């Protein structure tokens, strides 16, 4: 479970100098599913740390304090409904970077089977934004 914990210090543990929180909308449409996969991919690529958007919506104190403790907050919405960024707006937490999957060239559908090529292309575009 240690890989799930992010330390804000400068010691020799897994921590980084800048804490980047990555929050996907994790919606049910294809682009929501892709937002979740992008957050995982960006975390694995070392671009930041996937954190829990639902926890912000639920106003879980520890989740709110964790978001406030991030140096940068990156929100990935699937579509222009911008649910995840609105969750942050409602919580009064500023978003530093806002990515919308449909703006990466993915059409919103109800298809739950996401092609690997779409995921990899979207991830590549996202990585360039960091």
């Amino acid at each position: 479970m240690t890989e799930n914990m992010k330390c804000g210090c400068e010691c020799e543990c897994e921590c980084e100098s800048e804490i980047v929180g990555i929050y996907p909308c994790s919606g049910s449409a294809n682009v929501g599913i892709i937002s979740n996969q992008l957050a995982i991919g960006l975390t694995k690529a070392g671009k930041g740390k996937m954190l829990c958007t639902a926890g912000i919506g639920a106003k879980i104190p520890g989740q709110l304090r964790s978001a406030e403790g991030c140096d940068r907050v990156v929100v990935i919405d699937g579509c222009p409904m911008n649910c995840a960024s609105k969750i942050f707006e409602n919580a009064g937490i500023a978003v530093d970077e806002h990515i919308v999957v449909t703006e990466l060239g993915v059409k919103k559908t109800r298809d739950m089977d996401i092609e690997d090529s779409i995921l990899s292309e979207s991830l590549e575009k996202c990585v360039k934004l960091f």
Partner: protein
Amino acid sequence: MKIEILGTGCAKCVKTKEIVEKALQESGLQADVVKVEDYETILSYGVMITPGLVIDGEVMIAGRIPSVDNVKNWIIGQ
């Protein structure tokens, strides 16, 4: 009063403990100061980045070192 410092013993977590002790000393208050290094316990508070500071079960800060004044305000407000 119970003050929990969430972290794995790294520099910022150690510094947070020092600040808590200084805040207690300056305010003349006493508390049980506990270092929490167990990840499951840390995550149970919803804290995803450390250091974290919990006072009587309430998460006050995560991912940053609090100031002495902040801690003093929090403990006086308890």
